């Protein structure tokens, strides 16, 4: 076990640092994902291209796809160094594409698609979004109802009608990975098909969702008679669920480590707030200290667990098991820390601080976004089921809908 860089790793890190020093972008992103303005997106694209030229975009991808053919550890080192300079969010608009959609194309798409999409995505030229969730298919993605029927003009094209939801970045995405139902007459997992879609296609209407936290970072996407070619199909007809599983597995691997400020920021806040009944600071209060210790342990445990996953990856093993842990713990911790911060601010905690980059503003955002994180990308309950079933081998839930034709399943919105 070695938690320090090996000589080669140290050398790589030094190279990264020196490159970052001379190439740091002047324009940054200061808003959350989905809420970026066009200037932020331009900055992100420019930075991604610069990284690609230097071999720091998609470090681990093979050179034939524009990657650097590097090790997972090198990738981590680059991310750590980016993070140190506050560049951690410069790549988030590409997360859907590079973390989920394009890997799916690489795994399940045809050669033409790979040639067409991989490099532009890697260079930040094209932004992708993921079109899976629907109003009545949240945790149960395979219950998607958006329909694709073959055009009756003999073209082999597909006509798509329906609605997707919770699509981050849809309003500025170039391309989307779209899960649709092509056959409602067979059981639900068997009637799905995957397509890629040009987001500028006629008939696509992207509407922002006004969220509980106040902002609008996600979208609803409506499809009205949207025509796609059969060549846009990713994988076989009726095999869409298997393709989606590739995406979802990549999603869980790329789900990050918590939202906004964490224990160090709370510790800093506590050091400047008066303690219980006015004595000393909150940081000197035993009640706070006890919780701080537990939060530190959980946060560090998560960080180290992610590093263990990376070690497994770098040894060619499939991590998977550890990857499910992250969000279960960090989403809830985001809620808990935010609540504690507000409690310790006492009456003042209710005063809205709109600067999400400040400590207090960050915790207030976290108060809402913790709730969102416990839902997005698999609810707490779904993730625990995954751990119980895939890691521990416990029985799956009793399914009443598995062998029934999709159209006959009892359901409501």
């Amino acid at each position, binding site marked *: 076990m070695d938690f320090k860089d090996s000589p080669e790793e140290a050398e790589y890190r030094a190279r990264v640092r020196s490159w970052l020093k001379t190439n740091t972008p002047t324009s940054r992103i200061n808003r959350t994902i989905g809420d970026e303005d066009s200037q932020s997106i331009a900055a992100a694209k420019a930075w991604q291209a610069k990284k690609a030229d230097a071999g720091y975009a998609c470090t681990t991808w093979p050179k034939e796809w524009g990657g650097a053919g590097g090790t997972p550890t090198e990738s981590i080192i680059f991310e750590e160094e980016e993070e140190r300079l506050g560049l951690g969010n410069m790549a988030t608009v590409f997360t859907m594409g590079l973390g989920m959609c394009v890997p799916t194309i690489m795994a399940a798409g045809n050669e033409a698609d790979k040639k067409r999409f991989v490099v532009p995505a890697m260079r930040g030229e094209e932004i992708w979004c993921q079109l899976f*969730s629907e*109003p*009545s298919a*949240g*945790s*149960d993605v395979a*219950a998607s109802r958006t329909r694709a029927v073959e055009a009756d003009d003999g073209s082999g094209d597909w006509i798509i009608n329906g609605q997707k*939801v*919770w699509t981050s970045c849809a309003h500025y995405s170039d391309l989307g990975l779209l899960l649709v139902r092509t056959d409602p007459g067979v059981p639900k997992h068997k009637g799905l098909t995957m397509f890629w879609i040009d987001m500028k296609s006629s008939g696509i209407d992207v509407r922002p*969702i*006004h*969220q*509980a*936290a*106040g902002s609008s970072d996600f979208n609803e996407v409506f499809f009205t008679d949207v025509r796609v070619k059969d060549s846009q199909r990713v994988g076989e007809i009726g095999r869409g669920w298997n393709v989606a599983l590739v995406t979802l597995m990549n999603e869980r691997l790329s789900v990050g480590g918590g939202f906004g400020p964490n224990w160090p920021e709370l510790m800093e806040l506590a050091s400047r*707030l*008066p*303690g*219980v*009944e*006015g004595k000393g600071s*909150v940081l000197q*209060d035993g*009640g*706070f200290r006890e919780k701080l210790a537990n939060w530190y342990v959980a946060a560090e445990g998560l960080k180290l667990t992610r590093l263990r996953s990376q070690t497994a990856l770098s040894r060619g093993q499939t991590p998977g098991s550890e990857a499910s842990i992250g969000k279960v713990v960090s989403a809830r911790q985001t*809620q808990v820390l935010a*609540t504690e911060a*507000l*409690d*310790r*601010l*006492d*009456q*003042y*905690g*209710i*005063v*809205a601080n*709109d600067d999400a980059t400040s400590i*207090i503003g960050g915790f*207030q955002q976290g*108060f*809402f976004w913790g*709730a*969102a994180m416990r*839902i*997005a990308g698999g*609810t*707490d*309950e779904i993730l*625990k089921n995954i751990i119980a079933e895939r890691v521990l081998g416990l029985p799956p*839930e009793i*399914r*009443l*809908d*598995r062998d*029934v034709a999709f159209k006959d399943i*009892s*359901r*409501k919105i």
Partner: protein
Amino acid sequence: MNFDYSDDQKFLKKEARKFLEARCPITSTRSVLDNDSKAFDHKLWREVAEMGWTGAAIPEKWGGTGLGHVELCALAEELGRVIAPIPFASTVYVFAEAILAFGSDAQREALLPGIASGDVIGCLATSEREGVILPEEMSARVVTGKLSGVKIPVTDGDIATYAIVAAQDEAGPGLFVVDMIDEGVVRETIKTLDPTRSAARVEFKDVPCERLGAAGEGAALLSNIFDRAAVLFAFEQVGGADRCLEDATSYAMERYAFGRVIGSYQAIKHKLADIYVQNELARSSAYYGAWALSTDAVELPEAASAARIAGTHAYDFAAKENLHTHGGMGFTWEVDCHLHLRRARQLGLALGGLPHWRERLVRSLERYSTL
């Protein structure tokens, strides 16, 4: 011994629910939420006053209906259920209670009838900065009957006609009644986590004021005022928490995932059972608080602290898990889950956060212990 509402109180509560279902639908709360310039629902405030609710605990001789505190608790529970967008808590639970308990007869006569009629909106101004602040640390000062200083946040401070302000004078910490219509009062509406309730930063510049209660007794008075209000807040919290449980339960019976309603999954069933348990414990503590409040019992400090801690836990928890049960829909602006999340925090912080209340409670327990 009798640990429930009486039949008359139950009837009052039922009528109140009917009234609020008709007159305070969620669109009322949302009209305040979505309109920055609307501080509260004026029409509802008027109607509530006409029903005699603002004067429920005010004796008839001062214009109230003299129903009593337990009756007020029952109303609070119903107001909490519907996330009522009116300055009821500031005016009735805090301001009126303080005047009732500590006002001179002249002050009672001057102010209580206006509360009962709905003409007076009251507030309490104590906070000056981030974190717990003790009366002896406050920088607001009263010199020769004139108050100066800044208070933030002051719930309903932007709409109040009167305020009770914690400040120090030569005798030490004190409470002072201020007519907010004075030109030395500079108020600035501020944004809070709960836009369905109004709040302000209030600056007092040499504003005439009148002492409430005895000189130098500000800390003790404030403590009692917080205790009394905490009980009434707890009923709003219990009402809100119960509503969250009902909403979550009915959504869980409607929403399908994997071919079954999500309420048939044990994780959801047990989560909702956990909410039920917390709510019932909070209800029991609130009842005890109501008894202590209505009888001026010596047990009020610990009863109030327990009611507040249990009520805050319950509403926070119910609001969070109600949103979670609603899944992605719960995180949209259009679905009401976030309104409870916001109000839960508003109620949980307006009288100070839990760390402070836990310490108050343990001090009460230490007083009784023979150690």
